[in-house]
């Protein structure tokens, strides 16, 4: 059996400049943040992000200048920051191409990739400017010419239903990322992935991608996961690299392990307002630490222990979330 375990540095070295890439998680939950930081340290460039939805992790990559194309439906920090300042800045600088789809459309694009078909039909979001043919930004940038086999020839297609005569559907093209980086609570030593709680769109993101890197809170025996195969999401042969790395989703949260570190994200979101403050923030929290272990030590035990989930409730009962 092939041993897929490796260090975070080795795993991130598998990502190439200009890769089409996607991630596990939902906005500020179960994002593979330790790998994002390491991508910045390794100075990845020209990434083409395709995400069912986006969040803090992408603001970091965009702010650091690692991203050339962003295709998704939403970016922000939820309660901890409503404006995606990095993407906003790069958009106005015209250094990042933004291709807007709706959430369901992005989900279906990823699902089509996972199903091995080039598109899926949907009724979602008809009548909106998302479908405005003038707003096909990859086309405007000349990137739909077939030179890059990962980029489809069209943003959308409109097709009449010939079966039930229900009208005009939207066909959305599959996305087929070269890389998916996943944060999971548990992975077996052969690669079986178990996600606890909501699975978001992880199954589709993983199955649509050519190369799958998993950061897991813990590696557990396959024999344990195989006692209840109904609870597992992904078989091992779809996984290429496994990194055991506790707290590797911080500051995003992970069901059963830890809550979102709201103040941390709020500080980052505030710092992201200007390029200078963004640079200072990453100098401190990314380049200023050698690796994930140093990052955790910088955060300190008290901070992490407050975030740690109650094992019955699956979320932290110690974290202060509101004004009371």
């Amino acid at each position, binding site marked *: 059996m092939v041993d897929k375990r490796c260090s975070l540095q080795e795993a991130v070295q598998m990502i190439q400049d200009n890769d089409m890439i996607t991630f596990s998680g939902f906005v500020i939950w179960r994002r593979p943040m330790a790998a994002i930081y390491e991508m910045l340290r390794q100075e990845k460039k020209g990434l083409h992000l395709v995400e069912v939805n986006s969040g803090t992790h992408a603001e970091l990559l965009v702010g650091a200048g690692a991203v050339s194309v962003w295709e998704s439906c939403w970016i922000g920090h939820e309660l901890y920051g409503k404006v995606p300042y990095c993407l906003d800045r790069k958009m106005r600088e015209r250094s990042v191409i933004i291709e*807007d789809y*709706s959430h369901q459309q992005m989900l279906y694009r990823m699902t089509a990739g996972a199903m091995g078909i080039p598109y899926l039909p*949907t009724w979602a979001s008809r009548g909106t400017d998302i479908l405005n043919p003038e707003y096909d930004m990859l086309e405007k940038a000349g990137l739909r010419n077939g030179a890059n086999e990962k980029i489809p020839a069209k943003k959308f297609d409109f097709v009449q239903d010939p079966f039930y005569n229900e009208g005009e559907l939207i066909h959305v093209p599959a996305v087929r990322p070269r890389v998916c980086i996943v944060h999971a609570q548990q992975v077996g030593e052969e690669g079986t992935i178990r996600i606890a709680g909501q699975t978001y769109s992880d199954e589709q993101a993983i199955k649509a991608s050519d190369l799958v890197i998993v950061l897991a809170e813990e590696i557990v025996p396959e024999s344990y996961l195989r006692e209840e195969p109904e609870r597992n999401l992904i078989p091992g042969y779809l996984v290429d690299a496994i990194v055991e790395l506790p707290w590797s989703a911080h500051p995003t949260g992970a069901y059963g392990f830890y809550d979102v570190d709201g103040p941390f994200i709020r500080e980052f979101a505030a710092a992201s307002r200007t390029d200078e403050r963004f640079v200072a923030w990453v100098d401190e929290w990314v380049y200023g630490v050698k690796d994930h272990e140093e990052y955790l030590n910088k955060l300190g035990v008290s901070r992490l222990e407050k975030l740690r989930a109650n094992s019955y409730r699956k979320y932290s009962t110690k974290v202060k979330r509101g004004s009371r």
Partner: protein
Amino acid sequence: MADKQYAKPGEYSVVDMLAVAAAREVKDEEVVFAGTGLPMLAIMLAQQLGAPNCKLIYEAGTIDSKGDSLPSSVGDPRCVTKASVASGLFDVFNQLQRGKIDLAYLGGAEIDKYGNVNTTVVGDYLAPVMRFPGSGGNPDINSLARRTVFIMVQEKRRFKENVDYITSPGWMVKKWPEGTLVHRREAYGKKFLGGPSAVITNMAVFRFNEETGVMYVDTLHPGITREQLQENTGFELDFSHCKGETEPPTYEELRILHDVVDPEGIFLP
């Protein structure tokens, strides 16, 4: 209903009024889609009051959860507590498209008189002034739920004659490739399931003439005048169907909202 004890102006905040008015939109046994923030408060309040059996769906993949700790986002583990099903986006978006969602609560940065909402950019899309977070599931839910209720802040710059970009479809939507505005029924044909039924702000409740697709004022919140409302709106308001004052929160509603739904003060400071 006769023994309802209404709170008086000053005893509740505008956010309280908003949450209470929104909660009253849901009927019992309905299947409801809710996003982060005020929609969560509204639906959880409704579950404690007139709609104990309404089923709450979160976009990130949980169905009919019954937790006792308010989630701060739809991806929060608190959404999973005592749910009927915890799955993922593919489950809930498919149910939406299958027509299983009765009501959805949504938000928006800008809205026009037809209920078209913008959460994408300020300014020309091709030379934008500012980026908003983007559509999320707003247009999907709004195009496929049977009724949607928007919860918004009432400001002149947010209530516009025309939004810069239609992120989420109202009653008059764009028909492509021409981009002409047509009625939602015409654009959606056989797959027309419904549309925006109310817009609830810190000042008023609006509803729609479903034939013309135009928004009108249904009720004004206690203490708000027509003039104040018009001053905070970027298009001319239709008061011809105004029923008067929005029913204020009751003490019981306020108690539940603050002591049961959001005791930590996450969305209600």
